[in-house]
Structure formats: C-alpha cells, structure tokens
C-alpha cells in the first residue's frame, strides 16, 4: 500500500480578488505530484475550514494580498483546531510583511512564501514537512 498523494487546499481568504499567484502555486503543486483543491477567492474562514475538513487535506495553503492576514489567519487556525483538525500543515503566501512572520509561526504557520519564492522550494518544503509528520504518526 503506497502512501496517498499529499492533498492540499489552496484558498484565498478576505476580499482581494487577485488570484494569479494562488493559481500558479496550485499548478506547481499539482506538477509536484500533489492533489490540489482550489476553492477560489473571497473565502470566509468558515468556508475554508469546512472545505479542508470535507476534503481531508494534509495542507492548507492561504494566499492573501489585502493585509488582513493578522485578522483572518488566526481565525482559520482556531476554527480548524476546534473542528478537530490538529494535524494539518499551514503555509501562507502573498503579501506578508517580514515583521508578521514570527507571530504567524507561533500561530502554527510553518512557512511563509512571498513574492520571489520558488514554487519548487515550496513543493519541497511541503513534501519534507509531510514526510516528517507521517513518519511521526507511524512511529
């Protein structure tokens, strides 16, 4: 029985409508062998967590450009925990100021990938993190 492909939800919380980056990331992760569920723009935290729950994903990737990340991201992490998703990996991208990254890491975001980040690096990062998690579950 081989390991299942890594399942990733890519979502855009908040009100900015620019999803080129999210789509590029979705495509890159697909090409890296992952199953990527793209849910589109203007998603509320509830919509994102419901989708992640139903799709039983390993990773939630959030892209945001509006600057509302410090309001929306904690809400999403909190909701996911409330609904029992305590093993999901959070990554984010878009426009995230450097000074917010330590706080986001504390919240549970393992990685932040802004403009200029390589999609291959992102894929490798996710693969390594999930491999670690899966090894821990088996141990």
């Amino acid at each position: 029985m081989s390991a299942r492909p890594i399942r990733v939800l890519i979502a855009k919380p908040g009100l900015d409508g620019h999803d080129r980056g999210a789509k590029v990331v979705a495509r890159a992760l697909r090409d890296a062998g992952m199953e990527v569920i793209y849910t589109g723009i203007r998603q509320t935290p509830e919509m994102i967590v419901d989708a992640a729950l139903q799709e039983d994903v390993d990773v939630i990737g959030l892209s945001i450009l509006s600057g509302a990340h410090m309001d929306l991201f904690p809400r999403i992490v909190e909701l996911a925990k409330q609904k029992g998703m305590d093993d999901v990996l959070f990554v984010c991208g878009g426009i995230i100021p450097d000074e917010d990254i330590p706080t986001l890491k504390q919240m549970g975001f393992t990685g932040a990938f802004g403009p200029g980040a390589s999609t291959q690096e992102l894929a490798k990062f996710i693969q390594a993190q999930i491999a670690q998690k899966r090894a821990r579950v088996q141990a």
Partner: protein
Amino acid sequence: MLDSIERVRAGEPRAVARAISAVERGGADARATIGALYRFTGKAFIIGVTGAPGAGKSTLVNALAKFFRRRGARVGILTVDPTSPFTGGALLGDRFRMQDLSGDAGVFIRSMATRGALGGLASATFEAIHVLDAAGFEIVMIETVGAGQSEVDIAKHAHTTIVVEAPGMGDDIQANKAGILEIADVLVVNKADREEANATAAVLEMNLNLKPRIENEWRAPVLKAIALKEQGIAEIVAAAEQHREYLRAHNLLPARERARWRAELENILQKQLLARALNGKPLDAWVEKIAAREMDVYQAADAVMEE
C-alpha cells in the same frame, strides 16, 4: 473504529471525510470501513452527472444541489478530476464552482482524483458512494471527469445518469456514435441561451428517434437548461425522479443493483488478482524484454502469472 462508524452514520463531516480517505487508501482500511458501513447503505438516490469538459457539469450539480436543499434533502457530492499520468498530481477544481453550497451543513462535497482509474470515475468512487449513503445523505451526486466518448462507468453506479451537452458540440454523426449518449437517462442541453442550443437539442432528439422503439422502454427526455442562472433545474429533477419511478414501476432497480454489484465485484477482483500476480514485484524486467522483442505482451503476461 466502532466509535468512528457511529460518527459517520451521524453524518459528522470529519468522520465522513476520514472514512472516504480510508476507502481511497484501499487495503485493510477500505475493508474495515466498508465492512462496518455496508449494511447501512441502500437508501440514497444516486445521480450521475457526466459530459464533455466545459459542458457545465459542476455548475449543474451546484444548481441541482441547491434545488434539493430547498426541499430539505441532505446532499452528498463526489466530483472526479483526472490524475496526471506523468506526475501523479491533480488539480481538483470542481468545488470552485460550487461555492454557493459552502457553509451549508446539509451538503458534503468531496473532490476525488482518478488515481489511475479509467472510465471517468476515481478508483474508490464506488466505496465513497457507500460512505455517503451510510452517512444518511438522501441524494448522492457523482460528477465524472470531463468525459469523452467512452467514460461510461457512471451508468453502472448511478440510478439515474444525466448527460450534459453544450451547444455546438458536434454534428449528427457524433450523436450517432456509441458511448456516452447511450447511457443518458436524462439529456440536458446546457447554456441554452446560446444560439445553437435548439439545433443541438434537435440533433439529440433525432438520434433518440432513430433508436428502435421497444415497448415500455425509458426514453431519455432532452431538456434545455441554463445552469448558471438556475433555469430549467426543476424540470431536470422532475425527469430524474420520473426515471427513478419508472425503474421502480418496472421492477428494474433489482437488475440495476445487481449489475452494480457485479461491476464492483469485478473491480475489486481485478485489483486483488493484479496485486496477487505482481506480489509487489516491479514489471520493469518484463517491459524490457518486450521492448527488446524477446517476448510479446501475451508471453510476458503468461510468464508473470506463472512466476
């Protein structure tokens, strides 16, 4: 395990999602899950929605689900998109068109990648239908991959199969070919506000009329709809329900069910026999021999079986 089965039956999203992951993994997990849930299945009305890429399947499923929700029925949806044969990855984009349903606790949507299965469904779609059925969803809709001409597996699993066409998809020779049009219990010409919609509907009607009439046989109605504007949806639901009634009245459900079990049994046997024949060994050496013209494929297959 028992605890999680109770939670699946109560329709708890996390438990249902996990159970679908278990049947997708296959092996012992799938066995245990199906083993515990099977006796609770058999209540759902299973509707298949198929058609070419871009015909409007996801949008139609979205509109149908909203219609069923207004009646109070709980709706489970499985949407299938292709896995890349090159990377094993998949972009599952059907949910994107079903955002209206987001936040409704009476709807459960799961995107499935084909993971190598042909025929228009994912390799565990059968089993996932059981999970949703046992979880108490009265309506289970399955959206196939964008189907070409021979992705007809859905007809084996659904009670009623809806084939969606978009205007201008082809001439009457296309319509006369064997395959996807033959499995339609209901035919929908979507995007009916487009110019060629009437012509497409006429070609489909003509194709149906060429079929020899057999007494008491179901004739698929050809319906026009604009899924995006939710027009023509009530008529499609009515037709699907008439079809279900027809199956009941003519006592055809038992035969359909048996065809479904036969297909499912064959599917599982194929997987198990293949696993047994390969026994974890790679086929590379045989492929090399075939490529070097030392053996043909039949000889190689025999050799693998004997090994």
